[in-house]
């Protein structure tokens, strides 16, 4: 099964927090406002939201990559 993995570029990230707003099921914020990615495989219905999060990050810090199963 090809699932998506959400990756945050920690250098680019400036703690806007939009990603956690859009996709709270997979992204939460630490006490300083930086994203913690839940590494569980992303269910299909959330993929569109994940793409939204990647597109709307003001710093383009989020990328989606194919998760290699195994």
């Amino acid at each position: 099964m090809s699932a998506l993995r959400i990756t945050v570029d920690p250098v680019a990230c400036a703690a806007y927090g939009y990603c956690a707003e859009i996709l709270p099921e997979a992204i939460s914020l630490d006490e300083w406002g930086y994203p913690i990615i839940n590494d569980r495989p992303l269910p299909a219905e959330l993929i569109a939201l994940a793409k939204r999060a990647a597109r709307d990050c003001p710093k383009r810090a989020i990328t989606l990559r194919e998760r290699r199963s195994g």
Partner: protein
Amino acid sequence: MNSTYLWYTTRASGIVSLILLTLTMVLGLTTTSRARSRNWPGFAQQEIHRRISILAVVFLAIHVLTSILDIYVHIGWFAIVVPFTSPYSRFWVGLGTIALDLTVAVFVSSLLRAHLKPGTWRGIHWLAYASWPVALAHTFGMGTDSREHWVIALGALCVLSVGLALVWRLRASAKRRAPLSIETSHEDPLTRRVTTATVRGDRDDA
């Protein structure tokens, strides 16, 4: 089309688009991450900023279209793209043209944001800082309704809100940058020895 109705539409849509542009500015200026509380829905705010800007552009389009179609005064297609070429009220219409050009640039660049380098998009978006005051000057310089009390009050309200938002934004940026980009001195709580370190900060929201 009846020139009087066109004229009313031009004036009304002009004022509405000024209000909407002001709202857009305020929503855009108050978008920073660190100065906000964690529970503030920043993404929702950004979405509203975008949608109101679309509304503003729609009303702006109505304003421009009706002003050209109105044959009572002659402005012409050319003058809405090239500033200061309108036979009617050359200077003030010219300002309107400048504001229109800048607004279109900001709008189109945002539609194409994914295809632009972040620096390019950001640079063009800064033109908004220029287009809004020019639009304001155009509104009051054209003179048609600008002596009405309620219009003056509206204008003052617009200036006040953008002014406050700007002040808020500048203070938020300063607060954000301060702890990260200066040399900090730290005393070891255990040995009382002082070490200095520079932590580099470059996060720029402006």
